[in-house]
Each structure stands twice: as C-alpha cells, then as structure tokens.
C-alpha cells in the first residue's frame, strides 16, 4: 500500500479516462495513469511506473523497477499480499 510496486505499461486502454494495463512481475491489471500523464514525455507503452492501490504515482526507469521489485519480493508477505490484491478482481 505505502510501498509502491513497479509495473510496466503494456497497453493504453483509454487515454481520456487515464486507463492503462500494466504488467507487474507477469501479472496484468488495469491501473489509472492520470497522475503521471503530465510528466515529461507523457506515458507510453514500455514505460515503468510505481503503482500504489491501482494508480501509477511515479515514473521510474527499468533499473529502479528491477531493484524495487526485488526489494519487495524479499519482503515475502508484503509481496505476496500485494500480488494477491493486485491480481484480484473486486467481487461485484
């Protein structure tokens, strides 16, 4: 939650509604990219972002993404919880 998890943008679904699909360690999910679209260079497929609770909050480079993902993986339960929550569809 407070620790962001890094993901790579794999598809921009709807730029007007800020929807994009990201890949986090092989798991894909839709996130909101509205808070990073104004960054230098905008947001495009292939970019890496730090994701907090379904929102991309910071653009990072691939190196930082790898380092952060590895850090979160080492935390064991933090990673497991994050990936479980990230991959879960909310029950409607």
């Amino acid at each position, binding site marked *: 939650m*407070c620790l962001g998890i890094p993901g790579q943008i794999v598809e921009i679904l709807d730029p007007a509604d800020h929807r994009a699909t990201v890949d986090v360690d092989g798991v894909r999910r839709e996130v909101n990219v509205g808070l990073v679209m104004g960054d230098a260079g905008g947001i495009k497929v292939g970019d890496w972002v730090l994701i907090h609770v379904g929102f991309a909050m910071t653009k990072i480079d691939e190196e930082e993404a790898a380092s952060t993902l590895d850090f979160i993986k080492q935390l064991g*339960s933090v990673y497991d919880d994050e990936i479980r929550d990230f991959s879960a569809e909310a029950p409607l």
Partner: protein
Amino acid sequence: MKYVDEYRDPAAARTILSHITDLAQGRHFKFMEVCGGHTHTIYKHGIENVLPQTVELVHGPGCPVCVIPMGRVDDAIAVAETPGVIFTSFGDMMRVPGGNGNLLEAKARGADVRMVYSPLDALRIAIANPDKQVVFFAVGFETTAPSTAVTVMKAMQKGITNFSLFCNHVTIVPPLKAILDSPDLRLNGFLGPGHVSTVIGNRPYRFVPQKYGLPLVTAGFEPLDILQAILMLLRQIDEGRCEVENQYTRAVPEHGNPRALEVINTVFELRPHFEWRGLGFISQSALKLREEFAPWDAALRFSVPGVRVADPKACQCGEVLKGVIKPWECKVFGTACTPETPIGTCMVSSEGACAAYYNYGRFTKHDTVPVELTGRVKTPQPA
C-alpha cells in the same frame, strides 16, 4: 539481475561502512528511519549488525495501518454493520483489531465486508450495486490519498451517490514534528521515507533542519541506499551542515508529483485534530473531505460512534511507533502477539516494525542508548 547486484555489492558496502565507522567514532548517533519499508531492509539484511555500535537506528511511525487507533476500527465496524452497506477495505486493514474485534470478524457476523485492491474497485462495486450504500475505508499517507481523491472526483463526475468515503488519510510531516517535540526520544537525524517522498518531494521536510537543527536524508530501499544515507547524515554532522538531502534521486523528484498533490488539495482539507495510535491527538495531521464533497463523506452519512478506545494495556505499539522502545522490548512481542494472532497494529501490517522484526530479526537485539543532541532545538512554534 545485474541492476540489483550493484545495490548489494559487498565491496561497495565495505567501503561505505568504513567511512561510517570513521565518522561515528567517539560518540553515539541515533537516527530514525521513518518508513516501515526501510525497517524491513534493515532487519532483513542485518544492517544493525554491520553498523558500528555507535550508530543506532530507531523505527518511526511510517506504517499507514499501524497508526490507525482502535476507535477508528470500531467506527468502521459500526458503519460496516449498518443494514444495506457494503463496506470495502484494503486487505491490510481487515485484521487490525479494534475494541470490538476486527473487520474480518464483523464479516463473519454477517456484515458485507469486501477486500479491495484500489478505491476504484470500491467505486465499481457501487456502480454494480445501486441499491446498496458502498463505503470505502480510506487509509494511508500521501502515497494513497491521491488515489482516493481521484476516485471521489470520479464519483462526483459520474453522479454516483451510493458511494462514500470513511476517511482516515494522514500526512507524514505532523507525526515527525510530534516526535521531535516529544521529550521521550532524542535523535540525531532522519532517514526520510522513500515512496511518500515521490509524491510530496523533499521540500516539506525543510522544517527538520530549519526548526530542529537536524539533518534528513531521503533514502531508497536497498541495503546500500540505507548505508549511503546513514553516511550522508554523518557527513552532514561532521561538516557542521544541516539540511535535507536526497539519496533516492532515482525515484524522488525534488518537487514530488505536482498532479497528485493538486488532487489531494482539491478533494481534501486538513482536519483540526486526528488521533494517532501511540502519538495521541496531533493537530492538522489528517485529511477530511472538503465541504463540496460532503455527499461522499461516510462520517456525515452514517452514524459513527466516534468513541475513543484505549490500546490494550499489554500492547506497546505506541512506544514502538515513536521509536522509544524496540519491538522486542514490548512485553507481549512474539509471545501473546505474533503475526498470526496480533494484539497491536505493528504486528498486523506487513509494513509494521514488529512484523519485520518477528520475521527477520529475532536473534539480534541492540539496546537503545541515550544520545546528546547534535541539533540546536528551538522552542517549537504552534503549527
């Protein structure tokens, strides 16, 4: 994983450690790592064991789940048990005990409590269930507040009226002030939080050197990041400097994320007071919805008891959150209080110091030592 290896390079670690050892001779230094993520790195990699004994790390309040007081959990349960309500929460909050059990137990008693990953999921549930009132249990520092803000703005734009927020967002700077004003703990500097700073930037920390005369270095999460940030703190002290420095430049822009700060400011305003677990009431330390968003405020829509509940006597999360005691110094640590049967929040949250210590650090215990202040403490001005 070539990228990761360079942050674990033993030769680089030895070089930094030798500099740290040189600068830390002759007196004791006590630095607080504000963020629970840093606490994990420190325990996981045994950083306390490689540092000279004169450098002590104490753990701070930077765990969003840990700082929620028991009374707020009881309030959440009261809303969740209101007929016709679907109550949504991050998974981390579901096991946090209130005075009247936790949200999972409320669910077992029949309340419709659902775990969501994102506030947008809660909004989707509201759209799919127009005959129900969907409440989202909003918690977290500036890392999650922008997401909640965007969600409420979407609810307003789409005219979704069966969605509301039970708002418990907090901000990182006021508890740092409270810790600095507290007579319980004397510090020589801070390791500033990593991911919160990607949102707020480094400027909000300037009061630490300016008002309290202490250095703060924003740090990344790799072991070498932590060691380098400690060295940067020691260098500042050695050179008579005192400023906010950024070790984590690869993720933290100086000004944070302006768009995220803007949406926080659009939707939220500061509360006059908010109770923090262990730290008590801190003025202007939390966020509430602005008046124009009142229709989405669960605190106005539902009857919220608002009762203050004292922490269990045995639980010392408050002292742990303030850095006054180490997790293992708590009387119930690892005996009555474990990650499986937590009594306090610091053991519930995977970002909590007690959970981190329980998982990695149980065999290394370093006592806390009083230190002389390096800063010139001025009389704190009212905020």
